[in-house]
């Protein structure tokens, strides 16, 4: 009786080991990355979903999408005071600071900003959506973790990576939605 349990346990362990092992090709990739030096290997480390996005070249198969979005949604944190719209002026500085949001590298927010990028969707007039609760929350969530609504989005996860704190995310949200923000100036 005991031996049967033992054999069963060993079999399960074996299956687990095989499933968690990297393919020979993945092992080879890891070996190449390691050969680039410790610091390179350290910064090239991936979390589970970065690895998944890489594997599928940023186009997830439909059966992966649901669980992916769920995992990413669980990562979103909100400001302690619960206010998802902060100060648009601080938001503007974060939007254009290359070391912080760096949003303007891809998105035009204030059309007066020289050299704003056009790779991402233009955000001029974004505030015409109003400031109802769902709009504010959608905007906040998108900035905090772009992968929670779009798997493997080209947009990076500013809040998840700690580049923007929840409070700072609320400021950038205000920069986009506040009617007084230059994003929404009457033109």
């Amino acid at each position, binding site marked *: 009786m005991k031996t049967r349990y033992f054999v069963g346990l060993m079999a399960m362990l074996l299956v687990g080991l095989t499933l968690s092992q990297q393919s020979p090709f993945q092992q080879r990739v890891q070996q190449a990355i390691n050969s*680039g*030096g410790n610091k390179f290997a350290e910064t090239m480390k991936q979390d589970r979903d970065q690895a998944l996005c890489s594997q599928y070249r940023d186009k997830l198969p439909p059966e992966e999408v649901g669980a992916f979005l769920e995992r990413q949604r669980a990562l979103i944190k909100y400001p302690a005071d619960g206010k998802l719209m902060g100060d648009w002026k601080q938001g503007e500085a974060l939007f254009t600071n290359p070391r912080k949001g760096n949003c303007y590298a891809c998105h035009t927010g204030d059309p007066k900003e020289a050299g704003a990028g056009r790779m991402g969707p233009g955000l001029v007039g974004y505030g015409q959506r109003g400031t109802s609760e769902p709009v504010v929350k959608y905007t906040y969530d998108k900035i905090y973790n772009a992968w929670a609504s779009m798997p493997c989005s080209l947009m990076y996860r500013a809040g998840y990576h700690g580049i923007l704190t929840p409070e700072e995310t609320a400021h950038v949200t205000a920069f986009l939605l506040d009617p007084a923000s230059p994003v929404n100036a009457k*033109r």
Partner: protein
Amino acid sequence: MRDRSLWIGFLVALGLGLSIALTQQQEVDPYKEAERQRELFRQTAGILPGELYAAQGEELFAQKRGPKNASLEACDFGLGPGKLEGALTQLPRYFADTRRVEDLETRIVSCMVNLQGFRPQDIKREDVKALTAFVASKSTEMPINVVPRSSQEIAMYNLGRELWYHRAGDRDMNCAICHDSYAGGKVRLSPVRSPRQGLSNEWPAYRFEADKLYTLEDRIAFCYESVGIHPPEYYSEPMIALSIYMLAEATKGKNKFTELPGFTR
């Protein structure tokens, strides 16, 4: 109403564009500005900085140096010992003597070690850069011709493609985000190209905005730095893998090298 505001927006953008164009040309057309800067160098110095590096490299190439007191004239870049004409066009490739796939920079280091007897740690990066500029100058404006054939070359190409799509770092970046998804467009003010569009066909190049010579490996390092990932070490597998991937794709796109060393922003 919407049409009208679109028009006004268009006119404002046009006006803004023009005023920037008049004050800071490089912010509007980086290619034209590079051309202008290049002409200015020609007029005032009579020689381009890239040509100076190449001249320096030529001297280093012919000099008897290192513990073995030998020149690099017997270095085989894949076309036979000392054959430099077009050598860069077929690199990276597999070399039986070192039993690895090497790009131009790595091959130069191998020859400095094997022919001249240098220890790898004693090889100066500046010397390798000058030598790279010199050897590359012999492939000026030639068609790129990197076709992975041996199993080692194909494996290196596959590694490079995998690294190309590898999303990492706190900006969740990979190479493809800029160089595939937005190829042909601009990241802020910088035009971006895909490998097929000939990305990598101007290196080594003198960058006037940095006042430095950048080899392809330097340029790859710069890309990694700008997305918050510590660059791989020089002559390491990731450098060679990405190089063979980009240059093999450039070959598929039937691209030529520019003038080498290139002159760019």
